[in-house]
């Protein structure tokens, strides 16, 4: 925290600052609030995208500072518990009468199961992908099997939401549990921010695009034109470059939107619990996407995909493009 020299270079990287112009809702303000011990409103509104870390010339590890300062309230804890088990999450989403949830998750599905004998690799959809984007999981499974892999699907949660929202210890437990479930198998994740989180915590996981590039599996010539949203944590770790490389190999033209890694507005659970600021960020994202002039958006992270779809764009995962 002492590395922060208060230069303010992080301000424009921060989605909540961009839409409020308020120091209270900025990384610099939040760090100051933590230093001064002020229970600032800004600590609640942080989207935990950590884009400020990329903007910071002093290398302040904002994420670590913020995760240590947040405490999950009971409502958040319950939300996190549901995420931990996609089957339960599915049931919860089916019965939930929360308008906010229904708006972004109009039709949840049961997680796809698959456990082949002596699997070559694990397919990790990610908790939200498992129940909200089942079609993508199916296409990924087919994509891999068509190329001769025996696949085991692990439906679980990486704990990123827990980490960002005041349950760091629980996040560690979830990571450890995945470590033992993954064992020595190669893991392919369909949720790029989860990939990033698991990589940061030392799990050997590949993002789907990364697997395609590194393994050199054949990619069909798809053609067409898209714009790309870079999920925040994936962008932080630099793995979004694989998405672009796969698009290139598939001969798909990319028309860039403004600031591809700008927060989508989901912000962990913020799209439910901080609707006002969340909506303003989504509007800003809509404006930035529109600048590309393209209606098809590639997003490889589920919360971003749900939000961008709700904004009225056609959203596809990399694997949706390759399998179509």
């Amino acid at each position, binding site marked *: 925290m*002492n*590395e*922060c*020299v*208060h*230069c*303010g*270079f*992080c*301000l*424009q990287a921060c989605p909540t600052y961009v839409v*409020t*112009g*308020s*120091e*209270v809702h900025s990384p*610099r*303000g939040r760090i*100051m*609030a933590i230093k*001064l011990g*002020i*229970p*600032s*409103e*800004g600590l609640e509104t942080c989207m935990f995208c950590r884009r400020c870390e*990329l*903007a*910071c*010339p*002093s*290398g*302040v590890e904002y994420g670590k500072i913020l995760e240590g300062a947040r405490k999950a309230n009971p409502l958040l804890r319950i939300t996190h518990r549901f995420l931990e088990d996609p089957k339960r999450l599915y049931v919860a989403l089916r019965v939930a009468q929360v308008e906010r949830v229904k708006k972004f998750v109009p039709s949840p599905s049961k997680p796809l199961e698959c456990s082949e004998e002596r699997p070559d690799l694990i397919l990790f959809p990610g908790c939200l992908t498992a129940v909200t984007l089942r079609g993508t999981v199916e296409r990924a499974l087919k994509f891999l099997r068509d190329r001769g892999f025996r696949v085991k699907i692990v439906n679980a949660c990486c704990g990123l939401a827990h980490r960002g929202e005041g349950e760091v210890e629980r996040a560690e437990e979830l990571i450890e549990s995945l470590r033992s479930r993954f064992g020595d198998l190669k893991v392919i994740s369909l949720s790029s921010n989860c990939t990033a989180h698991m990589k940061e915590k030392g799990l050997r996981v590949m993002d789907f695009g990364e697997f395609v590039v590194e393994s050199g599996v054949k990619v069909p010539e798809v053609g067409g034109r898209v714009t790309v949203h870079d999920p925040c944590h994936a962008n932080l770790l630099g793995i979004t470059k694989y998405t672009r490389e796969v698009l290139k190999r598939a001969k798909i033209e990319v028309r860039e939107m403004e600031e591809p890694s700008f927060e989508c507005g989901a912000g962990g659970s913020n799209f439910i619990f901080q609707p006002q600021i969340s909506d303003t960020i989504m509007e800003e994202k809509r404006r930035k996407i529109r600048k590309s002039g393209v209606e098809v958006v590639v997003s490889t992270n589920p919360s971003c995909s749900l939000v961008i779809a709700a904004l009225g764009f056609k959203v596809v995962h990399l694997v949706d493009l390759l399998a179509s």
Partner: protein
Amino acid sequence: MGEQWVIDGDDRLLYSYDAFTLVKGSPFLVVLPGTEEEAIAAVRHLLSRGVRFVVRGSGTSLSGSTVPTQGEVVVSMTRLSRIYEVKGMEITVGPGIANALVSRGCPSWLFYSPDPSSYVVSSIGGNISHDSGGIHVLKYGTTSNNVVSLRVLLPDGTVEEVGGTPFLDPSQIFVGAEGTLGVVLRATLKLTPKPPKRRTVMGVFKDVNSASRAVVGVFRVGVIPAAMEMMDRNSILVVEKSRYRAGYPECGAILLVELDGFGADEEVELVSKVIEGNGGEVRVPKGDEEEERLWKGRKGAFAAMGVISSAYLTLDSNIPRSKLPEVLEGVYRIASRYGLFVANVFHAGDGNLHPLIPYDPENKSSIQRALEASAEIVRLALRAGGVVSGEHGIGIEKLRFMEDYYSSSDLEIMERIKGNFDPNRLLNPCKLLPRLEGCKAKDENLRILYKRPLEVE
């Protein structure tokens, strides 16, 4: 104005600082108007009640000019960030817009040329109030050369459109006034056609002396570079440890020179010869990626000081270019006498020094040392024919040097201007002008900057 845009709880304390963190202020409250009308209403309200206030943009001032040292109300202009109009080669914007967003918002063949290192975040209102420079000052001028006209709210409550005339332009009095004369509500800025070509040359030198000689040499061959920046050994070290790691060589000093326009290639040849003629080695970046990295390292150098120290002072005296060798040598002498790791990363082309002086904010003697060393450095620059501040402003940081540079009649004239505009001294009080009667200094560091004795007042 909605309730959420008036901050009167503890959160207001987040506006206690800008990028000058030596002195902590404490705002009475913070208001964030969302429209020009709201801003006018809020400021008029403060004026009519005789309440002192500080107008603030992104809070990146390096001289503390937006620190509410007297418990003022802070008026944040960050939400007034609209682009109102682009007309020909001029753009009209709200004061809260970040500098970088001006270039982004104008036609692709144009750009807004002043680019202080903080340009990604610093606001146009703040740039105007500090007459901010940046690396391209050398060829394209400072903010004052790029302001066409302003809409200003004056301390008597009236709104005036000023400027746009070629002779004795009245908008200029607000440029560099640090918010002490009026509130900038709107600015019409000059845009510049983007040069068709841009080339970068890096000169690698064994010491700052030979690099300094090359700086003068470049002008002698008839070249005005778009930018010419020097980084010394210490600043290279700092950047290479930071996220802005640029792959600079380990050496005594580097010169980063940008040449643009149709003659850029020819100028690269000329500058390269000057570099070699002064014992330097020429390096030309291979491709855009490397070029961008080299400049990003330079632009991030200040904030990168965070990797070695949680706080630093930065000075910005301008000196004649020919005096660079002796003044830099003096800076190192002073640094070593105080045992300080001083890094120099600066606009060598226009002789604008930026010694960065680290200190430990928790340690009184460290603060004392940094302040004393910086006073010696400024006086050294003044003796060499320099000025107190080239681009960061006086704020509170350099109040103590005003009398060293300006004569009493200079200061008297400034006081008369201030008195005519703002007789009640409500706008950004206790900044810029060294007349400090009625200015409270509870903070010990502030007392040093006010040149007051350190015992309790």
